[in-house]
């Protein structure tokens, strides 16, 4: 999607890709690419809307698509996903409808969570994509709990827990990985190391040689993967998920990424990133890298890219139009869902100012 000069090429021959992705590898690539194009389109469109004040906030995942798509494609319906900040695409690939997600971004009446959260914090029960807070790290120990429940119920399925490099410093990273090591439950820890926690570079986040080395402190295995290489990400996830499903202990996968956008719509990276960062990130653009490989290996016929882009634009546009035409959630929803429906009544006479 971007210019290909200086791009770090994917280092595979077609037969190596077939070997890594398994049979039908070419089809997997095409489907992955289609999702990536959609994600890129959505990110670009929503960032523009945010600047126009039409949505309140947006946190792009540009540069992290390869991991998200691979996880979405490889996870089974019975699996559960605990997102970090930038894994909304996993929910979409797992089947959460794009229009529903866009309703969430606008916080309207058709948002399944009734506009209770900031944008990019969807709750998608339909695809076992768990409601997230903005509080860094808390999902990690929760994911271990779900994995423990799966074990207790002898249920099929594994749990994928996503979090950023910054989150490795959180309390819940420590507790989560420690519990997982002791309990040996089926959870896969996926650290999306985009090398920045807002303005703090990863070298300043921890003195460890690489984040995947932290696994050993919990008796776990850790691996580092090029997260901007779809093939490598897919192969690593496929291997790890396979081992987990066979009953192996939990693992930590560190996906090395490049944050290609500001931290969020409220951030100005010019203040802290080195001048060559954007260029380094661009050379590792996961979508462009995949696209280049596919074109060079005859998997992207002329015009296919344009078709996919215009299809993505159309579906994003339609979803936005639908959301903008939808009203805000009813005021009465303010006091719903705090407790189970039969729980205590709140605020006595309802809403509005009460005095005395």
């Amino acid at each position, binding site marked *: 999607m971007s210019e290909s000069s200086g791009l770090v090429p994917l280092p595979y021959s077609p037969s190596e890709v077939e070997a890594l992705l398994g049979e039908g590898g070419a089809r997997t690539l095409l489907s992955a690419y289609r999702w990536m194009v959609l994600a890129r389109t959505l990110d670009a469109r929503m960032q523009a809307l945010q600047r126009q004040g039409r949505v309140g906030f947006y946190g792009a995942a540009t540069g992290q698509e390869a991991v998200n798509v691979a996880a979405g494609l490889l996870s089974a319906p019975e699996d559960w996903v605990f997102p970090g900040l930038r894994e909304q695409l996993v929910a979409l690939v797992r089947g959460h409808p794009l229009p529903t997600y866009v309703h969430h971004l606008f916080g309207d009446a058709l948002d399944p969570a009734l506009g209770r959260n900031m944008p990019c914090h969807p709750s998608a029960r339909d695809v076992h994509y768990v409601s997230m807070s903005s*509080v860094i790290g808390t999902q990690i120990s929760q994911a271990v709990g779900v994995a423990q429940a799966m074990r207790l119920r002898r249920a099929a399925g594994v749990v994928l827990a996503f979090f950023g490099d910054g989150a490795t410093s*959180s*309390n819940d990273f420590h507790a989560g990985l420690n519990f997982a090591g002791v309990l040996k439950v089926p959870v896969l820890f996926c650290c999306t190391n985009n090398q920045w926690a807002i303005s*703090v570079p990863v070298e300043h986040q921890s003195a460890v040689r690489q984040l995947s080395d932290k696994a050993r402190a919990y008796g776990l295995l850790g691996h580092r993967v090029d997260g901007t290489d779809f093939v490598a990400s897919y192969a690593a996830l496929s291997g790890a998920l396979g081992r987990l499903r066979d009953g192996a202990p939990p693992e930590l996968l560190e996906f090395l990424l490049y944050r290609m956008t500001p931290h969020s719509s409220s951030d100005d990276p010019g203040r*802290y990133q080195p001048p060559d960062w954007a260029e380094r990130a661009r050379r590792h653009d996961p979508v462009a890298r995949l696209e280049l490989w596919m074109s060079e290996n005859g998997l992207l016929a002329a015009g296919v890219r344009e078709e996919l882009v215009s299809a993505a634009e159309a579906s994003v546009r339609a979803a936005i139009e639908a959301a903008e035409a939808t009203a805000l959630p009813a005021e009465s929803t303010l006091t719903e869902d*705090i407790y189970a429906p039969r729980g205590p009544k709140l605020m006595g006479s309802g809403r509005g*100012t*009460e*005095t005395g």
Partner: protein
Amino acid sequence: MSSLTLVQAINRGLAEAMRTDPDVVVLGEDVGTNGGVFRATEGLFKEFGAERVVDTPLSETGIIGSAIGLALYGLKPVAEIQFLDFIYPAFDQIVSEMAKMRYRSGGQFPCHVVVRTPYGGGIRGGIYHSQSTEAYFCHTAGLKVVVPSTPADAKGLLLTAIHDEDPVVFLEPKRIYRSVTGEVPDGDHRVPFGVARTVREGTDVSLFAYGAMVPAAEEAAAVLEKEGVSAELLDLRTLSPLDESAVIASVEKTGRAVIVHEAARFCGFGAELAALLAEKALYSLKAPVARVTGFDTPFPYALEQLYLPNTEKIVAAARAAVRAA
């Protein structure tokens, strides 16, 4: 005097303290090269260097725990928690350690940490960038809890906090970080703790507010004046220690009290004020004490404006109080 926004005043206060006292260090997430996500620490990194303006890893536990260690050793740490909503990983350090260190050691180990953190709603921040949970801290013996509402107070209270001997939770109303501007004294300006500010005097009803609710209450008082109701407005400024005598004196004069805060009502700070009035000013009251507060729901996103107290709600409560007697 300089004309500054509230966040600029905080920035000036920090710089002033750091210039005059080499023991003052600032630590937190993104406070260094980035100047803080709200720019409260803008320029400090350049002026004072990485040793005194410390970008920390992403751990509130680590920020407050190490700030406590710095303080025990004799330095004056000013820790920034990026949003009050993210303070809970450090709650243990704040309520079990920082607040109790002096007491539990028989006075041997004072622990003068300042924890600065933006709080409150009105910025479309959703559940986790909007909450007002000052009551948790006010409930904890050993903590001082401060909430400025003007640029001058922001600087003056911050400098008092930094040079205080006790730990201070310094809550910054982020919604008015940039929307209020005011004259701020230059240099080492200090505003004492435990003294409320009379924003305007009145005779019919007392409005009690703090933080971002002060401008809303001020507007309400202006509206009421047009209706012939004379409202007195107190900006509490320090919730702990509370200026009890000012609160009582005001109600003894007006006989009516309207308490305003963004936080949820149940066990909110207003409950303490209402109890204080019941204990010490009951016979001066001509009308039931009224509270204009957030609802007892989590902080919403889409329906934020419904949740937040505002001028109309305050006016309505004051009117009702005046009508009651």
